[in-house]
């Protein structure tokens, strides 16, 4: 077994030596044709003989208790097979392996609007839904905290995803500085907003549970499911070959999976459940609303002496996840005195959790605008200000950085965008009705390497199979794993088959936190290295002296077909990548720079983004096309987060008011301008075996701030309360 602590890179990786020229190429996603022709089957499309359909029952008040439930009419409604209520295992919402089960086993206690309490099972989805409307619930309501005051935190910096940072004497450094910036920003609730809602088909084979479910991990999910159902994880198989978007919302196991499993057991039939779009808002988690105070203190030349990023977020009771608002801020800029942390207010809201770039997405909307304001006050170009505060090592503890091409991203971005042609004076460029402005912002996303396994089989016919329980949530996993293996073993792409999305395959950490591609690629690369060693032994040479290309092993003036070396027998290797001591010895992140040009209607305040440029350092580029697509999607999310997205909770009832795509606005194609994306490729030897860093969430970090800064440059108006909708601009627009 190629079992290796990452990152060591004491010798050259199998990928560095490879000559097949497949890795990094902009190859179309191999699963694309199946998806556009409908061949790819998603969880709810899976067929099962005699399947029944469930509809989740949810409470319709925001706080209190359920006094009684009358399901008489529902039980006798057409098509209804069963109504399951009062089963202690039925979760209030999504389940996971880090919260305590009591956080979702709420019984008849109502903690938040829309929590699940039962399921109607019927012969059709429509019959189940219609019958669900007949279930009568008598509530004893109590006054809930639906409108938490984020200016009055209750829990001070609890342990979360990112510890608080307190270095130096912040107050002294801040108070004594030549220039001080101090402002408050607020960001609203964001939904993950995946196109495919949470959906599951559950069936039992004796005491084995098989779930076709829409999840970001398969093997990892079995642990959470096991806790929720009080059964052993090795009795559970999760299958998810295709997932219609995750965006963090499918890192937990959807409530419907547990309901379907219980209903399937009770009825003896396979059971399918899909959450309605409105249910997903309440049953799946959202990004918490934040209130962020940003303080920046500099000397007269603009060198940062103190950086404060202190936030308050809302979370429901007993849930552990704390939006890590300062995760990107921690290592972004210089400044010896640092005060960064997140406080919490508990609320009767649905659960908040990890959504698209947790921390950075909302954090950069504050700090990257604050940096823009500080630069202007100091009379510095925003890039120059950032350049002056580029740290050479971690400003927290002096640890070295992995590859960090942030300054190169600024420079190349500025060149491509034409930053030197910018008029820095706000509200000075106008084209007819449109006020034109440009802005920039930095991008950062913590890079995480996680434990991952992959098996590779080189078949006697010279084709390879890579197996791991990773998912492809629309990101390109099928394609990049193929490329890694084809590159490392010298095979043409059509000789590599990728099997993923099944918990019976070797365990990965799934997709999330932008760690999926780099971690699973590392595991695959390590397995390839093992196979290469076996092949080299058969050639009678050292692996380092052998080249694998076009299905041949080349060494010592010989070119031998792999089929000949294999001699009718498959070679198999297990790759196991995991973070090692080196991981903690340096600071790893992906970086980038965003540039945006906006037009703001002088009449109405409507904002239209006209073009964007993004330049990124993501380590090794595994596939130029899928990497670009991920960044593109992230930047468009950035547009949505600054201009549109706003999950609204009614302060009187605690329910989401706009839980559908009609009124929860995300950026449409028409809102997405031409976007120029460029990578400054620098294989990160410290990051992992693949030399690749996270991509998926990087594009969403800072993109919105670049747009906000461009709006200021266009209009002279700063809005710190996101999203920047026209009603917030209109009173400050010029007289028409």
């Amino acid at each position, binding site marked *: 077994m190629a079992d290796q602590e990452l990152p060591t890179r004491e010798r050259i990786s199998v990928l560095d030596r490879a000559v097949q020229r497949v890795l990094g190429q902009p190859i179309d996603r191999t699963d694309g044709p199946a998806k556009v022709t409908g061949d790819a089957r998603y969880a709810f499309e899976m067929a099962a003989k005699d399947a029944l359909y469930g509809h989740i029952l949810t409470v319709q008040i925001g706080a209190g208790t359920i006094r009684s439930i009358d399901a008489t009419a529902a039980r006798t409604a057409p098509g209804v097979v069963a109504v399951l209520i009062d089963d202690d295992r039925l979760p209030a919402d999504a389940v996971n392996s880090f919260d305590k089960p009591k956080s979702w086993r709420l019984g008849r206690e109502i903690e938040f609007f829309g929590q699940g309490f039962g399921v109607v099972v019927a012969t059709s989805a*429509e019959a189940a839904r219609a019958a669900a*409307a007949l279930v009568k619930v008598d509530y004893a309501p109590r006054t809930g905290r639906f409108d938490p005051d984020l200016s009055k935190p209750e829990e001070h910096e609890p342990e979360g995803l990112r510890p608080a940072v307190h270095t130096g004497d912040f107050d002294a450094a801040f108070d004594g500085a030549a220039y001080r910036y101090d402002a408050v920003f607020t960001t609203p609730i964001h939904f993950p907003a995946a196109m495919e809602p949470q959906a599951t088909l559950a069936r039992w084979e004796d005491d084995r549970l098989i779930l076709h479910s829409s999840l970001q991990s398969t093997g990892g999910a079995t642990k959470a499911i096991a806790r929720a159902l009080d059964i052993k994880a090795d009795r559970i198989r999760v299958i998810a070959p295709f997932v219609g978007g995750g965006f963090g919302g499918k890192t937990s196991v959807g409530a419907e999976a547990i309901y379907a499993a219980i209903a399937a057991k009770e009825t003896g039939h396979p059971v399918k459940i899909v959450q309605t779009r409105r249910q997903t808002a309440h049953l799946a988690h959202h990004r918490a609303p934040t209130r962020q105070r940003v303080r920046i203190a500099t000397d007269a030349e603009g060198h940062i002496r103190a950086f404060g990023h202190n936030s308050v977020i809302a979370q429901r009771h007993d849930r552990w996840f704390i939006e890590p608002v300062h995760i990107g801020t921690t290592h972004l800029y210089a400044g010896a005195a640092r005060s960064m942390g997140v406080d919490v207010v508990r609320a009767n809201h649905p659960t908040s959790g990890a959504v698209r770039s947790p921390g950075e997405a909302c954090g950069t909307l504050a700090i990257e605008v604050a940096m823009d304001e500080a630069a202007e006050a100091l009379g510095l170009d925003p890039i120059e200000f950032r350049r002056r505060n580029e740290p050479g090592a971690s400003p927290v503890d002096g640890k070295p950085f992995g590859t960090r091409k942030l300054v190169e991203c600024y420079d190349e971005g500025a060149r491509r965008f034409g930053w030197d042609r910018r008029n820095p004076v706000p509200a000075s460029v106008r084209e007819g009705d449109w006020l034109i402005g440009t802005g920039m912002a930095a991008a950062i996303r913590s890079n995480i390497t996680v434990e991952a396994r992959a098996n590779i089989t080189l078949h006697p016919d010279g084709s390879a199979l890579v197996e791991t329980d990773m998912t492809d949530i629309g990101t390109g996993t099928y394609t990049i794993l193929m490329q890694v293996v084809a590159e490392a073993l010298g095979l043409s792409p059509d000789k590599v088959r990728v099997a993923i999305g099944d918990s019976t395959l070797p365990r990965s950490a799934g997709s999330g936190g932008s760690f999926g591609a780099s971690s699973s690629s590392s595991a695959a690369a390590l397995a390839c290295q093992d196979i290469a060693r076996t092949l080299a032994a058969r050639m009678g040479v050292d692996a380092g002296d052998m080249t694998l290309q076009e299905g041949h092993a080349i060494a010592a003036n010989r070119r031998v077909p792999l089929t000949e070396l294999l001699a009718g027998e498959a070679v198999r290797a297990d790759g196991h990548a995991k973070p090692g001591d080196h991981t903690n010895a340096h600071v790893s992140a992906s970086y980038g720079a965003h540039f945006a040009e906006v037009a703001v209607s002088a*009449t109405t305040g*409507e904002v239209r983004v006209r073009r964007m440029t993004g330049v990124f350092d993501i380590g090794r580029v595994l596939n130029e096309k899928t990497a670009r697509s991920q960044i593109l999607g992230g930047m468009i999310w950035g547009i949505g987060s600054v201009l549109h997205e706003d999950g*609204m909770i009614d302060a009187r009832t605690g329910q989401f008011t706009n839980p559908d795509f009609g009124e929860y*606005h995300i950026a449409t194609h028409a*809102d997405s301008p031409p976007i120029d994306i460029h990578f400054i490729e620098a294989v990160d030897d410290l990051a992992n075996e693949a030399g690749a860093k996270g991509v998926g969430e990087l594009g969403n970090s800072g993109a919105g701030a670049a747009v906000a800064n461009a709006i200021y440059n266009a209009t002279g108006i700063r809005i710190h309360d996101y999203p920047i909708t026209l009603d917030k601009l209109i009173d400050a*627009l010029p007289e028409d």
Partner: protein
Amino acid sequence: MKTFDYSRADTPQDAVKGGAVGNTRFIAGGTNLLDLMKLQIETPERIVDISRLALNEVEAMDDGGLRIGAMVPNADLAAHPQVIKAYPVLSRALLAGASGQLRNKASTGGNFLQRTRCYYFYDTAVPCNKREPGSGCPAKEGFNRIHAILGTSDACIATHPSDMAVAMRALDTTLVTLKPDGDRRRISIHEFYRLPGDTPHIETVLEEGELITHVELPPAPAGKQAYRKVRDRASYAFALVSVAAIVAVDDGKIANASLAFGGLGPMPWRSEAAEAALIGKAPEREAFEAAADALLADAKGFGSNDFKIPLTRRTLIAVLRDLTEDAA
């Protein structure tokens, strides 16, 4: 979704006979009705499918007007050469609405009958006088950023969501209907919609089983036409404010003005007072401001939609300025 009976009508006469039976809905494109049925906001017992009725022609009329079959899809109507040429305000309004996929399915007749997008109307867990008469209106003191500032009542402050119907109102459209007893009615669009009063669930003067079969546009009016829609994103969003304007300038004076508005009221809004403030006046800022003043004299915000008042004013003035620029 509740179980329902389905039948397909082959002729308008069949359709209205079927539609006259209690709790029946016609379905054409289904782009709004199906969503409402899934949420059980609409719970018809019977559905009469009218999508294959032979009402999909756009024909020139003898008087120079245009007769549009009720089943003509929004996309087709927007792209019709005669509409683009003579009624550009209508084409623009149609293209400003919904998304490409929805416009391919949505019918001309159905577009008039869209239900509001009020958040609370869509949420069966809360009261709504439009959904459950007499239950109450949470919008007045809740989230009302997208709600009406004109024509509201204590019972309801919802807006009518259509873009097309706003242009139709500026164009003095007539709706032609067929009733179950075989009678035909011609209803001016100005009399078609009802203000909410204390019966916000009754939105039009259509009677049970009455079917819109055609829409008639009078000959193209003199003047230039514009449709300006202000919304929160560039596509697939309902109007915060929209203006359909037709303005003719003759000899330095505004000779004719027709102004209709979306996003402001419970129906596509028309303001005779605003038009009167323009006619006979030089196309200058003073007249435009007077028109805005007249339009908004009775405007009332409910908190988060207060911005619609200055927004409407600014948008109307800008539209009028653009339409009369060359003539001034």
